[in-house]
């Protein structure tokens, strides 16, 4: 019983983290393409900024994946 709760916790952790970051990175990419289409000469600058923000956004789900993997395989498994 406790083990099945742990499995559920791990998968919810992974899924919700991925959900938020997917929406965030989707909006980020859309805005980047919009900006690039409007002012193509700014693409190098925009790309750097986009990667910085992507790294910031990407950190949260990666951490969630790591912790949920730990729960799924080391604590529950």
């Amino acid at each position, binding site marked *: 019983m406790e083990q099945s709760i742990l499995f559920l916790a791990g998968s919810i952790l992974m899924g919700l983290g991925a959900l938020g970051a997917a929406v965030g990175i989707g909006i980020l990419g859309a805005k980047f393409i919009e900006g690039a289409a409007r002012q193509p000469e700014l693409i190098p600058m925009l790309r750097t900024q986009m*990667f*910085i923000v*992507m*790294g*910031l956004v*990407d*950190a949260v789900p*990666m*951490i969630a*994946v*790591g*912790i949920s*993997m*730990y729960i799924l*395989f*080391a*604590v529950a*498994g």
Partner: protein
Amino acid sequence: MASGELTSGAYIKHHLQNLTYGKFPDGHWGFANDALEAKEMGFMAFHVDTLFFSFVLGALFLFLFAMAAKRASIEAPRGFQNFLESIIDFIDENVRGSFSGKNPMVAPLALTTFIWIVLMNTMDLVPVDWLPSLAGAMGIHFLKVVPTTDPNATFGMSIGIFLLILYYSVKEKGLGGFVGELTLHPFGKWMLPFNLFLEGVNLLAKPVSLALRLFGNMYAGEMIFILIALLPFWIQWSLSLPWAIFHILIVLLQAFIFMTLVIVYMDMAHQKEH
């Protein structure tokens, strides 16, 4: 896998256990033999593997750069010199872009954090069982190879950065200016406790988020490499190769973000307008 009778949970936990040297509850000092003993040591414990690898990589960084600087030539720059010059140019450009104050220390600080973190993160790309089993053959039972998967290392760096932020804030703005920035900023002087709370959280969140972001990314990456290492030997390359290639991006990106945020925080510490 190290041996047949290990369960996957024990294998993962074994890989995530640092080599700990510390004070036992009965008072003598020594190496912990398992995770429970390491936990009982509490605060008085050193993660010898983290310290060892971070010092070795820091020394490697200094040695490589010193060697290139000694051999540098203007007439005929060779490959390695060009490579290091391109790194230095890249960092210089970043510092010029986002740092507006006057401080000759920020660019070397950014270079050090960037190269050091890249080197420490790159240890993640060494296959997870090589160095631990080598150490096991020499009689060392626990070894965690990547220093940045240990929160002690990342918090050490970010607390160092935090002290620098405090030092330069006080130096540039004066103690009064810094306290004023913390207490009077968003809502004027009649809301002083609220301002102090907001700005205090803002200030304390800097080192915590800096450290946890780097630690979390590297920990998650290492975790997935360890899980891949649980597969049968002949199939591992099919997962670990794509993940390693993707991980190169994370390794460089996280080092770059750490460096950028250090520059931005130092810039905020040098701004005097409030």
